[in-house]
């Protein structure tokens, strides 16, 4: 028998299961949802008094445990979602932390601006996007999300607020972007958006026969294209390994779209309500049926064929939302991986320096195929370095691979990924925390330069001396254990 006492001084919190987007991790937490900076300060004070750790969270779009805190408290910023201002003459937006990319483009596009950097889904918050320093299909051209941040306010666990930009508090500026929410809580972000002259982009699909051909396409076009992304059929072997479909897009110049005023309206950007006649809300149930190696082999092969057809079509036009937010076409598509506990997916995104990328990716795909863990989806992108301390970005390439996780395959998959991680680290590669579910401390040590890691830790000791802010991701990569992959000896 035990007694639990209720005291009435605490701010209201909700006890919920907080889950990673990929459903591969989660924990029960007391979730606090502040509406104001003052409420963030109160939450910090209360959490400090309780002696428990506090994890920051936006809409929870990270695939892994970046917003999970199995040690008690979660500060959910989604209620702080006011667009404070949008200047139609400069395209500069002042946003509260919990404003989503969806809110931003719906506000900016009718005034002739599109966010410079967006993810494949429109649902992340801008604070989450900054904390994880996300990137889009134009990373090679415009950099990461942090590169479009002009300034932000960061509330420290002490309650102090620091305004950071490229002139003021520059260390904190470059460390908090990509800083995993470990240095403080963003309360306001100022972003630069991009002037556009149409609600559409010009898109071309090009079927490529292997990875070398895909990389050659990117290299040939990256000076001109505004967006480049490759879909990889990870099931293809032999000479066709790394085959797939490149999507190449560019903005329209002023005057090219005679109906720009209409196409820039939100209504024009609507994603289709149905797919092949099925209501899109139910499409995941169909995907569930083919969510197995044979179904996915077939789907990838069909897509390769469809890509050839699309390649013959040449240039066509597509809305910004339709081109960028492919992941939002099928709501809840992750449920195709199962909805029961222990079922889900991980995305293993590998970043490799340009000179070793081709051979190393082939080695990785070959190993996946031999081990019987073939990614159901592979997405290929080109990247460039950025100035943020904990960045994943480099002059090179990334491949994002979606693996199905089940209670029975989990350990085996982790073992295979452990082998992949060795290959990546030996090649000088990196990983990306918005996607990662696997890295242990040892991988972190090998992938990120010591000077950067030490400087980051020193800054954390200054801004969060009590060590209030923690997540499962943080403990996984910074706890001094010697594993390369979490849970794999």
């Amino acid at each position, binding site marked *: 028998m*035990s007694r*639990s006492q209720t005291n009435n001084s605490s701010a209201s*919190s*909700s006890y919920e299961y907080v889950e990673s987007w990929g459903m591969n991790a989660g924990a029960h937490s007391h979730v606090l949802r502040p509406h104001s900076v003052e409420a963030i300060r109160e939450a910090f004070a209360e959490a400090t008094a309780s002696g428990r750790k506090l994890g920051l969270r936006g809409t929870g779009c990270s695939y892994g445990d970046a917003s999970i805190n199995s040690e008690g408290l979660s500060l959910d910023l989604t209620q702080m979602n006011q667009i404070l201002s949008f200047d139609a003459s400069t395209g500069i937006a002042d946003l509260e932390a919990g404003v989503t990319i969806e809110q931003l483009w719906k506000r900016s596009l009718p005034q002739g601006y599109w966010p410079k950097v967006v993810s494949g889904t429109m649902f992340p918050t801008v604070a989450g996007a900054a904390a994880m320093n996300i990137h889009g299909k134009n990373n090679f051209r415009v950099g990461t999300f942090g590169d479009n941040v002009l300034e932000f306010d960061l509330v420290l666990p002490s309650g102090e607020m620091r305004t950071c930009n490229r002139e003021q508090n520059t260390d904190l500026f470059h460390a908090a972007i990509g800083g995993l929410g470990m240095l403080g809580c963003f309360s306001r972000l100022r972003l630069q958006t991009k002037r556009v002259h149409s609600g559409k982009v010009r898109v071309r699909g090009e079927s490529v026969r292997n990875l070398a051909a895909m990389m050659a396409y990117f290299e040939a076009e990256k000076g001109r294209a505004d967006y480049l992304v490759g879909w990889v059929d990870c099931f293809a072997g032999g000479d066709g390994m790394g085959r797939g479909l490149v999507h190449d897009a560019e903005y329209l110049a002023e005057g090219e779209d005679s109906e720009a005023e209409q196409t820039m309206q939100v209504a024009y950007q609507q994603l289709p309500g149905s797919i092949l006649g099925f209501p899109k809300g139910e499409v995941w149930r169909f995907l569930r049926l083919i969510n197995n190696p044979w179904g996915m082999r077939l789907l990838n092969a069909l897509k390769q064929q469809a890509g050839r057809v699309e390649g013959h079509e040449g240039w066509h036009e597509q809305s910004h939302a339709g081109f960028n937010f492919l992941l939002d076409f099928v709501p809840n598509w992750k449920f195709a991986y199962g909805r029961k*506990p222990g079922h889900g997916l991980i995305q293993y995104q590998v970043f490799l320096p340009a000179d070793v990328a081709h051979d190393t990716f082939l080695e990785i795909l070959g190993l996946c195929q031999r081990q019987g863990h073939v990614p159901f989806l592979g997405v290929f992108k080109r990247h460039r370095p950025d100035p943020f301390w904990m960045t994943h970005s480099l002059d090179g390439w990334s491949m994002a691979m979606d693996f199905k996780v089940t209670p029975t395959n989990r350990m085996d998959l982790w073992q295979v990924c452990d082998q992949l991680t060795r290959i990546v680290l030996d090649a000088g590669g990196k990983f990306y925390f918005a996607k990662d579910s696997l890295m242990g401390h040892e991988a972190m040590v090998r992938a990120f330069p010591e000077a950067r890691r030490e400087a980051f830790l020193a800054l954390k000791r200054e801004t969060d001396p009590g060590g209030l802010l923690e997540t*499962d991701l943080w*403990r996984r990569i910074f706890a001094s254990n010697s594993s390369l992959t979490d849970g794999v000896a």
Partner: protein
Amino acid sequence: MSDSSALPVTGDSAPKVALRGRALVVGASSGMGMELVRQLAGAGWAVGAVARSADKLDALAAEVARSAPLTAGYPVGPVTVATCDVTQTELADLAFGEMAESLGGLDLMIFAAGIMPAVGRDEYNTPKDLGILDTNLLGAVAWCNAAARLFASQRSGTLVGISSIAGARGRKGNPVYGASKAGLDHYLEALRNRLSEVGVHVCTIKPGFVETPMTAHLDLAGAISASEAARQILKAAESRANTRYVPWRWGLVAAVVKSIPSMIFKRLSI
């Protein structure tokens, strides 16, 4: 994941013995609520018991701790108690959270709190009537909303609300009690429809005549014991019934009562 479990149903503070699950009973200090605590614990559930009276809860927990298991193969589950007045709706989220955490997670919540003060034939007493709504309806909304958020987020769980056959028609006897239960029925049905999309079940229990302290002042012909009612409630929850009359024959009574046209119903003294 070192600490974060992939399974929503395992918590760090969960007892290490094999348990059937974790249940929370709100309104646990008397009547059906108290019986539900006894039976759940006896069947091997870890049980959280919430009520206003600390003395009654402590006595109940002590009694359960001394009792023998009701179900073979399971120990008597531990009973955790918390005092909270459901009419203080602003405390519900916090109290619910603390209780669910101390149980190591939650699989079942039963809202059994309810009051039925005697109301005179010509009595229109607003404070008394609003007090009924505070407990029976507003308290239920506060606690069931908290449970709904947890269950929806973990895509599992069962929520049971104890309503009443009194919600079937607006009878002369106790207008606001009936209204509170009709409101509760409507609310629970809506929760059921919402939460079924994410694999969460909501069960509405409609007791007829049950011998409890709440009905002690009434002369109830053919009433069943609170313990029998609790047994039937748990059975309904386990079989994922949507609506269950306890005992079942009250379903027939309700069907008849609901079918009487108003022009006749208003002349009857039921």
